[in-house]
């Protein structure tokens, strides 16, 4: 069984009765909506037109929000409704990244995720959802889409229908009759400076100038601010530094290069401290930080947020042991070498996973096409090496052999970072959304930061450090080590923002 909605835009008059009935049914805070009506104006007078679209959760058959939610707060019922339990939500906002429809918001009263849940509390009492009841023109239908004899199936049978973002492969269960594609495709109608009876939120208004121009304009819609901000882009850097530093040090150990205390103490210390900082930022970013531990006590084994937490924990554990071993080695005469070798072999895969799991997490973020690249995994790992090596060069003095080792990894990783990013952003993207997002980075609002810092800074770092291929001079290498930190921080800030900038509704 699969409960679904049919929205008949042939009869929908854009009156917002559904919007308000839902708000009163669920006591939703001002500024947030589970369903709303979008207006799109097009055409030149006298052939002007206005289309309406009722926007809400699609109760997808393959709901990406359920996959990504680390605590099973979102779940699918037997009757097909995608429901949620606010008591399990930790407010990580991953669901908002997974959903390609802007369906989810973090309720300002409870700080937990919420969305249309088909009025499941009413369905369980044998009642229609509130929006279905109120609609003056009976433009919202509900029923079992899997049953060909149901009223909704008969309504839809033989009629041309549309769904939102079918290319995301979520198998949405809100089917539109008579809808205009300009209303359903979020890139088809950028906003103007004014709405029909309201004002576009500043974020969407600023974006509009950077989206490809079209004949249609969105003339009424709701605000959906970016869920993830500086805490997320910063933790991507702290994580990379910690993982990268220890991976570089472990590799040095396994290849017989002696990095001194840089390798035995600083690297694992960075591993522990930076991973801890990552944890602090992650928990700080939660809307319900008091529940952070749910990710370990009530896990969803399909979510890469869960596996990522384990990866971070595993790496932090290895780094901690590595550090303790290093301290023992420095402060006693015990030969810790064989232990370090074992730990180094563990540090490589755990470090690589700690740095790279984000690619799998972002791979579950079906709402952010820019983040769903197959290059993301190698990019993250290369960047980790870049900033890890860059951090280690700041950590102490090295002999030429050690210095050369670090420089080569720094330069090599920075160069690869440049190459991979150029490939990533200049090649044709796999979707219109990704194309638009890449456009923001390469030509739009982030272009200066991208080209001057993310790319240019790395090139600068290579130029600074490459002459020291054999280990000297060191001053420029230190500068390069600092520069690459700025490069990654800036890049992640751009990457995280650009991915979320493209409207989904």
């Amino acid at each position: 069984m699969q409960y679904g909605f049919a929205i008949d835009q042939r009869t929908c008059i854009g009156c917002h009765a559904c919007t308000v009935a839902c708000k009163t049914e669920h006591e939703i805070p001002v500024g947030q909506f589970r369903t709303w009506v979008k207006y799109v104006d097009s055409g030149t007078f006298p052939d002007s037109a206005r289309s309406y679209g009722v926007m809400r959760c699609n109760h997808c058959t393959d709901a990406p929000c359920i996959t990504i939610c680390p605590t099973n707060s979102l779940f699918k019922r037997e009757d097909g409704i995608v429901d949620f339990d606010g008591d399990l939500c930790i407010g990580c906002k991953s669901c908002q990244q997974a959903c390609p429809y802007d369906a989810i918001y973090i309720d300002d009263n409870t700080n937990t995720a919420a969305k249309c849940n088909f009025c499941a509390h009413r369905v369980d009492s044998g009642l229609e959802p509130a929006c279905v009841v109120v609609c003056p023109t009976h433009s919202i239908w509900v029923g079992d889409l899997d049953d060909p004899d149901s009223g909704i199936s008969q309504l839809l049978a033989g009629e041309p229908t549309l769904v939102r973002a079918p290319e995301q492969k979520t198998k949405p269960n809100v089917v539109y009759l008579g809808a205009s594609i300009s209303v359903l495709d979020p890139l088809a109608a950028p906003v103007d400076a004014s709405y029909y009876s309201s004002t576009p939120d500043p974020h969407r208004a600023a974006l509009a100038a950077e989206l490809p121009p079209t004949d249609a304009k969105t003339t009424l819609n709701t605000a959906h601010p970016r869920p993830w901000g500086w805490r997320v882009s910063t933790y991507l850097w702290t994580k990379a530094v910690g993982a990268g530093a220890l991976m570089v040090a472990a590799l040095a150990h396994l290849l017989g290069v002696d990095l001194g205390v840089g390798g035995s103490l600083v690297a694992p210390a960075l591993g522990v401290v930076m991973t801890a900082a990552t944890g602090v930022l992650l928990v700080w970013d939660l809307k319900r930080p008091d529940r952070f531990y749910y990710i370990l006590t009530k896990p969803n084994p399909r979510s890469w947020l869960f596996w990522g937490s384990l990866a971070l924990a595993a790496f932090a554990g290895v780094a901690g042991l590595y550090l303790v071993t290093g301290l023992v080695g420095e402060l006693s005469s015990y030969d810790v070498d064989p232990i370090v070798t074992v730990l180094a072999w563990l540090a490589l895969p755990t470090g690589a996973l700690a740095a790279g799991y984000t690619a799998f997490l972002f791979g579950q973020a079906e709402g952010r096409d820019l983040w769903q690249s197959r290059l993301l995994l190698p990019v993250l790992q290369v960047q980790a090496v870049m900033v890890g090596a860059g951090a280690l060069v700041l950590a102490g003095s090295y002999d030429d052999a050690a210095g050369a080792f670090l420089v080569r990894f720094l330069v090599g990783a920075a160069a690869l970072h440049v190459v991979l990013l150029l490939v990533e952003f200049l090649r044709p993207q796999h979707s219109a959304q990704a194309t638009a997002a890449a456009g923001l980075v390469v030509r739009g609002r982030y272009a200066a930061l991208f080209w001057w810092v993310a790319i240019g800074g790395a090139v600068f770092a290579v130029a600074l450090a490459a002459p020291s291929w054999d280990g000297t001079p060191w001053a420029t290498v230190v500068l390069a080590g600092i520069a690459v930190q700025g490069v990654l921080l800036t890049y992640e800030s751009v990457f995280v923002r650009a991915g979320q900038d493209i409207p989904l509704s």
Partner: protein
Amino acid sequence: MNLPGERTHEALRNFPPVENWDHHVEYDAKAHPRKVQRRFMLVPTTCFNCESACGLLAYIDKDDLSIRKLDGNPAHPGSRGRNCAKGPATINQLDDPERILYPLRRKGKRGGGEWERVSWDAALDDIAARIRQAIVEDRHEEVMYHVGRPGEDGFSERFLAAWGVDGHNSHTNVCSSGARFGMALWGGYDRPSPDHANAKVILLLSSHLETGHYFNPHAQRIMEGKQSGAKLIVVDPRMSNTASHADLWLAPWPGSEAAILLSIAAFLLRTRRIDTAYLERWFNWRAYLANLHPDAVPDFATFLDRLEADYAGYTFEFAAEEAQIPLARIEELADLVSHCEGRLAAHVWRSAAAGNLGGWQVARALWFVLALTGSIGTEGGTSPNGWNKFIPHGPSMPPPHEHWNELTWPREYPMSCNEMSILLPYFLAEGRGKLAVYFSRVFNPVWTYPDGFSWLSALTSDAVELHVALTPTWSETAEFADYVLPMGHAAERHDTHSYETHSGRWLGFRQPVLRVALERLGRPVTDTRDSNPGEVWEENEFWFDLSWRIDPDGSLGIRQYFESPYEPGVKITVDDYYRWVFENQVPGLPGKAASEGLTPLAYMRRYGAVSVAEGLYRQDERILSDTELAGTAPDANGVLRRPVTLDDAPPLVGEAGSVGVRHEDGSVTAGWLSPSRKLEVYSETMRDWGWPEYATPGYIESHVSRRQVDPARGELVLIPTFRLPTLIHTRSGNAKYLNEISNSHPMWLNSVDAHRAGVGTGDLVRLTTEIGHLVARVWVTEGIRPGVCALSHHMGRWRLHEDEGSRWVTGRVDITHPDGPDSWLLRYRSGVQPFVSDDPDSSRIWWDDPGVHQNLAFGVHPDPWSGMHCWLQKVRLEKAHRGDRYGDVYVDRRRSVEVYREWLALARPWTGPDGQRRPEFMMRPVKPTRRAFRAP
């Protein structure tokens, strides 16, 4: 029992069954997926947010007696369980943290912003004493009840009649006077009742898919009609949401609509695609020929030939030129209409009829087309409202009074459709009268009316001795009252009402739901203040109490009408009143109630509405009963009349004693309510009341016709009245869920005009009117025709003092006189801002645009025939001047007085036949005796 709004989607139903309404259990929405049961009592009432009066069900939590939410009433024949956004938003209005909970009396000067809380008793005693004094001293015309949103039929007219005052005033002439007048000339009834669901062609000179009387019930049926194959035609210079659904959208130059309709009429006559039999039977064609072609052979065929010739000048070319639209569009409209097969459902309510000088001709021409196509009163056609509306009377109806209030029914406008309310401030200033007690009842003229500064002046002058604002919320007008008395909202008051939503006829009931719930729980209250929030009352009990205090010993003859019909000498209660009405005045209701073992009152409290009839068509052909015919005799024109004296009063619509009409074939039917009881293609009323040149449908050039507005010089027509589906005048101001959707005031401007003016979206512009200017913000859109700009009716809300206006929607303003005492400048000090209250949502207000109070800058434009304020403004558009700020409105009141005089001069003060002040058949609230109709 099958309720009209019950529906299922397989196993899901839209409403719990009626038998569960006293003990409905639902799971708590916020606790879900935890199954926490909430026990509710569902009590029906009626929405108070517009005149559509859609049914609502209030969900009362039995544990704490709070109202959790409201949704629709499946028992309501009009709304059928559905609502527009404003229906469910009622909960915001009930829960508003800024509600006025207690009676307030002004301290210090009017408009000074200082108030003290007083008891209801103190207010009642003060008000009653003044009314009593006015009555005793024969100053009956100094007591006035000025209603904005009635939301009820019959109750207020009854108490005014009981007091013997001609004290009713309304808002009709900023609303529908034009459309009413044009229609009333035909058959007496003044509002249309289109049968959209069964139509073949739906013609809207309105925006009924988003607003108007009666938005939700009509929108439902318009879409049903469309889904069944009806073609939707919309005539509107702006692309409304309604126009966006049209199969054919015409955007004519404002004021040309009658020319378009007359060209359709001419086409139908030319091609003889007319219902000849209907016209022969129902048109007063003999009067037409006798007056216009006295030498012609008096037969119907000759009439048709003459009619065709008389209208031949209204060609498509003429209409296209007036309207500045392609001829092909008009031809397409004509073609669609001509194929309607008698199923043309048409509506004009405000729009062109409310905007233009002579706009009433739009309605006159529309009904001409309806008649020609044989669509009047048919299934799928358009009936008059009176066939689909039903007003039950209260117990012991007072006799008609003998007064005539010239402040509301002046000599200059003998045929105005309802009172000349827009001229009240000027009349008071001229010394035509004064007001001892003035009630502004759910009414905000300072804001809603043109030239609000004149209202402000009048309300702060000595001409108004006591101003009592009866209102659920603060308003710009209440700021200038002497008493602000909080009256209940939709779920907090009693009313009955009936509106023409479709081909049936129903009676709706509004009730204080908590009072009903308490009674059902065995804790009855006898005063609605005991179940409403704070000391919020309901008007009915207020009027009963006030009337007793006006006449405590009954010696004025008033108290008797407020005594219980069940217990003589005892003050009537709301239960008594409605028990009596429902037992005695509603056909079919006692039977329906008995079949369910309920009293009629209990039935109405249970269902909130009752269907009185369904499928009423062609009531003009209704055969009269013997009782109706008793004592009647036909006059020279075949009108059956009962003898009447000067002591008789005419009915609400129609002539006293007129009962029916005998046709030329001898048949006798009810007919219409015009003097001839036929459809008056020739109006002898217009002939007899000073306007023979407009006795037949015609075209009057608008005051903003294309000849008078030159876009090349920056002149445009401003439409200041278009509506949004989410807002409603003053009352939606504190509905947070409505304001978060609709909260800005863009000025619609076509790209062609924007380009010429050198402005773009977001730019400030100054619009100069006849009496001042306003500063608005441009929105360049293709959704409006060139030459026309528009600002929605709803925005521009303000408060002079911090705590006297809903902070969800108003900004703080200062009103100054920068260029001397006649100059007025309204300027916003701050916009809408978040505020701290018991509701956390008030801190989440993100919108800041209070809008532009454009109405202030409009001079008053009384149409000389209908009395309609002609809303459209000729404005000059230019970029904002240095120093202009968004929302500024500037007025030179000397100019506004001049404009008033210019328009007054267009009228023809007239006394009609037999010395009458007004044609008897035209609708008039609180109709006096026939003697009072005659000027002394």
